């Protein structure tokens, strides 16, 4: 029996939610196609976690409405719960219990009898490389193992929709790659994944579509390609040897790239976006041309780099303000009580 679902996994219109004076959601609209990875990208405090908590039935919205597979998250919360699963940013398994105990506990709560629950737990632990750690308390796990047991607990019932709230924050690069592989496997089996992240490259790697969230609103939406081409696919950073040459360098760069050049606070540094929509050359060719033009003009460049736009640059481009982190959950815990 396949549970592959077509159509929309999530439809949200005008979701609002405040905690005291903090407006965590200021009218979020979302349309998440089933069977894909959808990324919510934004800084801490943008409203990502609140949005996930509303969609996962943990929090009631103040206004607006949301449906998960056609079921309203407020009035049909129980139907939603039977099809979704959440891996929160914070502990979503019991740290005092062992890996096996955690999974058996949750499997039993999902209705499996004890032998079946044990079998399921063992299979999941094996698939997630945790068999050796199965009888150890979760608080003794490493960060990467913690995330794996969190995710294993979330797919006990192979949910139709899996929420992953910042699944790789604080992980080392290797553990991060492992989580990415797991997410790819999960979605290839028909589960829709809603992923929140602060990292553009993570959304880029995994998500079919991305919504950029800021101050409780979606400020841009599209495929990673669309988003990047709207703000330029790369950024060049330059450091000159002689600060006196900076005005000259700025002029040369502006002509070579045909984009505005930003002067950093550092008197020898310049930044420019390359690969904007509408130019013929790709980012690396543009950067190469800029570099040779600078050399011809006799400008000495000490340091040159071409990179993907960082989240901060995406934000700057989309909102004209840098991504300012605040701690959303603290606000929520403060206000909810």
């Amino acid at each position, binding site marked *: *029996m*396949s*549970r592959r679902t077509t159509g929309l996994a999530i439809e949200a219109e005008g979701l609002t939610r405040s905690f005291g004076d903090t407006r965590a959601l200021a009218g979020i609209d979302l349309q998440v196609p089933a069977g894909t990875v959808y990324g919510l990208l934004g800084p801490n405090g943008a409203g990502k976690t609140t949005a996930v*908590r509303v969609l*996962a*039935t*943990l*929090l*009631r919205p103040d206004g607006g409405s949301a449906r998960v597979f056609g079921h309203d998250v407020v009035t049909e919360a129980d139907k939603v*719960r*039977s099809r*979704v*699963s*959440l891996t*929160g940013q*914070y*502990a*979503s*398994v*019991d*740290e*005092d*219990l*062992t890996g096996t*105990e955690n999974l058996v*506990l*949750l499997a*039993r*709560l*999902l*209705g*499996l*009898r004890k032998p*079946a629950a044990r079998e*399921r737990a063992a*299979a999941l632990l*094996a*698939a*997630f*490389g945790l068999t050796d750690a199965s009888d150890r*308390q979760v608080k003794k796990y490493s960060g*990467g193992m913690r995330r*794996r047991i969190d995710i294993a*607990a979330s*797919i006990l*019932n*192979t949910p139709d929709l899996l929420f992953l709230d910042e699944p790789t924050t604080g992980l080392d690069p*290797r553990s991060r790659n*492992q989580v990415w*592989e*797991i997410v790819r*496997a*999960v979605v290839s*089996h*028909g*589960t829709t994944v809603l992923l929140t992240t602060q990292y553009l490259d993570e959304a880029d790697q995994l998500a079919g579509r991305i919504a950029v969230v800021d101050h409780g609103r979606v400020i841009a939406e599209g495929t990673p390609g669309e988003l990047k081409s709207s703000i330029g696919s790369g950024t060049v950073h330059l450091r000159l040897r002689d600060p006196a040459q900076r005005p000259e360098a700025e002029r040369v760069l502006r002509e070579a790239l045909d984009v505005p050049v930003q002067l950093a606070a550092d008197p020898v540094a310049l930044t420019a976006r390359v690969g904007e929509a509408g130019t013929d050359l790709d980012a690396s060719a543009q950067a190469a041309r800029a570099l040779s033009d600078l050399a011809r003009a006799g400008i000495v460049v000490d340091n040159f780099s071409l990179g993907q736009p960082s989240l901060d640059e995406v934000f700057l481009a989309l909102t004209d303000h840098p991504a300012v982190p605040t701690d959303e959950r603290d606000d929520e*815990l*403060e206000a*909810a*009580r």
Partner: protein
Amino acid sequence: MSDTTTTTAERAPSVYVPSAEALATVLAPGARPPRPSALGASLTFGWRAMLKIKHVPEQLFDVTAFPIIMVLMFTYLFGGALAGSPREYLQFFLPGIMVTSVVMITMYTGIGLNTDIEKGIFDRFRTLPVWRPAALVGMIFGDVLRYILAAVVILGLGLVLGFRPEGGVVGVATGIGLLVIFSFAFSWVWTFFGLILRSEKSVMGVSMMVLFPLTFLSNVFVEPSTMPGWLQAFVKVNPVTQLVAAIRGAMSGDSDPSATMWLLLWSAGFVLVFGTLTMYRYNRR
């Protein structure tokens, strides 16, 4: 010798590489099992409480050492002055101190719940399609075991010190049963505070403010007839007074139906009022 080498090699930590095939076997959607019954889910959460006791046995300190200290301290502190001898006093005092100790440890229900919420594990429980109160009921089931343990420890110590209940085994068991019923009901007060208060510390603070007057301004330590009138009025309506009277009656073989009825009414009231408030907050968060 070669055996040793093999073992070491096998135990060398290996880097986990997610394998598509291994993940495929666990991701295949199986038939969804029927949702567990309300009782089944609650008992499963109770099993979690048992596992926590297994892994963190220190938490039993509250239900063993604390009651022992309470019994010894007050028996020998007040015994001579109030009843002529500690042994005489114990016949009156033991049911009371049993109630005081057990009612005081009900506050750990609130503290435990508050910690679970702070850590985030309750978010997982609240997204499960199970009977909503199950997580809380299961938690209190686990606590009930602690109440029984505390009561038995106190009874055992009392018997050693010379407590001789005339109600016999049946009377004593009835008394402990009544205590457990009341404590189960009273725990819902703390689940409510555990949900609305900010931190473990504030739960503890509120508990102390409620529990001290409730247990001391009662018939636990002395007969209320020695108290001023206004205090007697409070003592008379205090549910702890009814509970102690009912248990004293049961254990001494001279049951007190009026106190027992009041105690059961109070218990029903606590579950009704604070159970409802708790579930309201639990669902609204």
